[in-house]
Structure formats: structure tokens, C-alpha cells
């Protein structure tokens, strides 16, 4: 290059400086100390006042029961966030079966936990440990062909419109339906409401 012929030393120095200024990405967690490390926090009092520590929901039915969803399925509610219309739950279909055609107005992600399920509209099958997303505008029909059915964790945002087998709109389900599903069952069974589910 022409510039090298003119001022190679200056160019080399500039390149070295640029290299020195270029931040290098972290390659691993910078601490492996098995201890709580105090972190500088200027606004800790505000975080404690207005923030939340997050939630833990254990695996037992004492933390959240299986609530029937039709004859062949049940839902275990894990979280409700009314500010964002977000709700999280485990869907369990106990044997081969169908969750009828529904349309999403928000985004969904899910992880298969047991068995398998698929949608009649797509060519994949979601099995344990596998990950799927569903996007606003998608309408589809969930089926499980597994003799033992399926379990999957769903994190969902926004509205789901459910249709009957003739394509007639029946109801829109969102965080309010899921809360009502949980609270109605708890009231009927005399179970206490678990506040940890309400983010």
C-alpha cells in the first residue's frame, strides 16, 4: 500500500493503538468464586422498593395444581403478568388428542418436556428437550399422536383466538382467561391462591 511506503511507522503505531482500543469479548464468566460477590449498586434502595426478586414455583401440586382443560388435558399455571399480558404454564395432554385450531395475536415459545406434539399445519414434531416458537398471525391445530400424550412448558404473550371445527370464532383467551381458569379451580377445590404465580 502507498501509505506504508510514506509513513510505515506512523501507520503501524495507529494500527497498534486501534488494536489496543478494540474491546475483546468476554470468553467465560469472569468469576468462578463460589460466593456472593458484592456488586456496586447506586440505586439498591429503589430496586428494593419498586423491584421484584423474581419467583420460584416448585414442582409439587401444592405450589400449583393440575387444572383440567377438557377431558384429556390439564394446565399447570406457573406465572401471570397482567402488565404485559404474559402467562406461563405446562400443558399436559394425557393421551392422543387435539387442542383445536387457534390463532395467536402474540408471541409464544415452548419447550417439550415429555412425549411429543405437533401442529397439523407444520412438518415438525416437538419432543422432550426441543424448542419451538409461534408468532403473531399464526393459526394452527395442536395434536399429540403419542400413546402417553405430551407435556410442554409454554411462555405466551397476548391473545389466542379459539375456533370451533367449522371455523366459527368462539373465544379469545389471554392472561385473564388463564388467571380465571386457575382461580376458579382453586375456589372450587378450596385451594389457597399461590401469590408467587402473580408476577
Amino acid at each position, binding site marked *: 500500500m502507498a501509505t506504508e511506503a510514506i509513513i510505515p511507522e506512523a501507520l503501524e503505531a495507529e494500527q497498534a493503538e486501534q488494536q489496543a*482500543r478494540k474491546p475483546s469479548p468476554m470468553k467465560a464468566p469472569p468469576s468462578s468464586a463460589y460466593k456472593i460477590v458484592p456488586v456496586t449498586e*447506586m*440505586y439498591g434502595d*429503589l*430496586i428494593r422498593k*419498586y*423491584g*421484584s426478586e423474581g419467583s420460584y414455583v416448585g414442582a409439587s401440586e401444592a405450589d400449583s395444581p393440575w387444572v383440567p382443560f377438557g377431558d384429556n388435558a390439564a394446565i399447570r399455571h406457573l406465572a401471570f*403478568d*397482567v*402488565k*404485559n399480558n404474559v402467562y406461563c404454564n405446562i400443558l399436559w395432554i394425557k393421551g392422543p388428542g387435539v387442542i383445536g385450531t387457534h390463532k395467536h395475536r402474540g408471541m409464544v415459545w415452548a419447550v417439550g418436556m415429555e412425549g411429543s406434539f405437533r401442529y*397439523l*399445519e*407444520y*412438518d*415438525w414434531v416437538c419432543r422432550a428437550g426441543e424448542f419451538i416458537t409461534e408468532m403473531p398471525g399464526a*393459526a394452527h391445530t395442536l395434536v399429540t399422536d403419542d400413546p402417553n400424550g405430551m407435556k410442554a412448558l409454554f411462555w405466551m404473550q397476548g391473545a389466542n383466538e379459539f375456533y370451533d371445527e*367449522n*371455523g366459527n370464532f368462539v373465544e379469545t383467551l389471554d392472561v*385473564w*382467561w388463564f*388467571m*380465571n381458569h386457575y*382461580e376458579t379451580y382453586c375456589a372450587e377445590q378450596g385451594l389457597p391462591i399461590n401469590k408467587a404465580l*402473580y*408476577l
Partner: protein
Amino acid sequence: MATILEPPVAPTERKPMTAPPSQKAEVVDVPFAYRDIVSRLSPGGRYIDGQTDVDSPWVPFGEKAAIKHLAFDVRQGIFSNILWIKEPGVIGTHLHRGTILMVCLEGTVKYLEYDWVAQPHGVIFEVPGESHTLVTDTGVKLFGWMQGPIDFYDEHGTFVDTTDVWWFINHYETYCRENGIPINPKLYL
């Protein structure tokens, strides 16, 4: 590779709504099965006045600028405010980790990195990963709806501080405390 199979044809074609279906200036009772849960658990919407200091004061941000805080959402790291730069000035180089929407209310504003100058009613959209340097040659009022941390750098490119919803709450509450102004709970979404 996932493919989407051909969907069956819908039984009836629906036509898109072309205008709001009711013109009546009256409250229409909307059927909704979960209204009791909404009234019990929803934080509710609200109105914040922007013309006066009744709901939220102008809080100094350096010597030439002030911020009128409008909303804080600690769940999503969202903060909304009006930034007022009272005369030609600069908000130094900063890098966004979240998404920003701004509307120019008065005056003009630009970034040294881009070729446009925002005019009143113009909309500015900023996305994670962008760093830029805000300059107004006239003074400006900007409404902003902002999500996520903003990393501020000094003029040598040395990182100084990250501002996020907690910084903005602290900015508002510190000023209110110093000036004997009551905290407005409406600002906390």
C-alpha cells in the same frame, strides 16, 4: 428445515374493518367475562399532564437541559419523559442496549452520525447496539418512550455510567425530595 403446509380455505371470507364500527359518543358495554379480575389486578391506565408541572416537574439535567418524567416501568425497564434542551447544545455520545421511540415536539434535533434533522411531529426510532451523539442547533423538546440501559461515554470514549429506569427514578425522586415536591404515584406503571 420447517415448512408451512398449505392451509385449508376458510369457510367465509371476512372483510377488513374500514372504520370504527360505532360513531356514538357514548360508553358501550363490552361483553367480557373476566372484568372482575381486571378490576382487581390490572394496574390501570392513566393520564399524565404535559403542559404544566402539576403531575411532574422539570428536573434539571445539566445546565441547559431538563427532563419531565412521565412513566417508569421497573418490570420492563421502560422510562418515558420529555427531554428539553433549552438552547443549542449536546447530549454526549451514548450507546443503547434497548429500543427507543422519540417524537420531536418543538425545535429541531439531529445526531452527528446520521444525515437527517428531526422536525416537530417527526418520529425517531433507535435500536439496540447503536451509539450516537445528539445535537440541537435550536433547542428542542423531545418526547421519549425508552426501554433498556443507555451507556454514556466521555469525549475520549471512556465509559462513565449506565442509565436505566433506576437512574431515571432516582433523578426524579431526588429532585422531588430536595424541593419538597410529593412523589406522584401515577408515574409508576
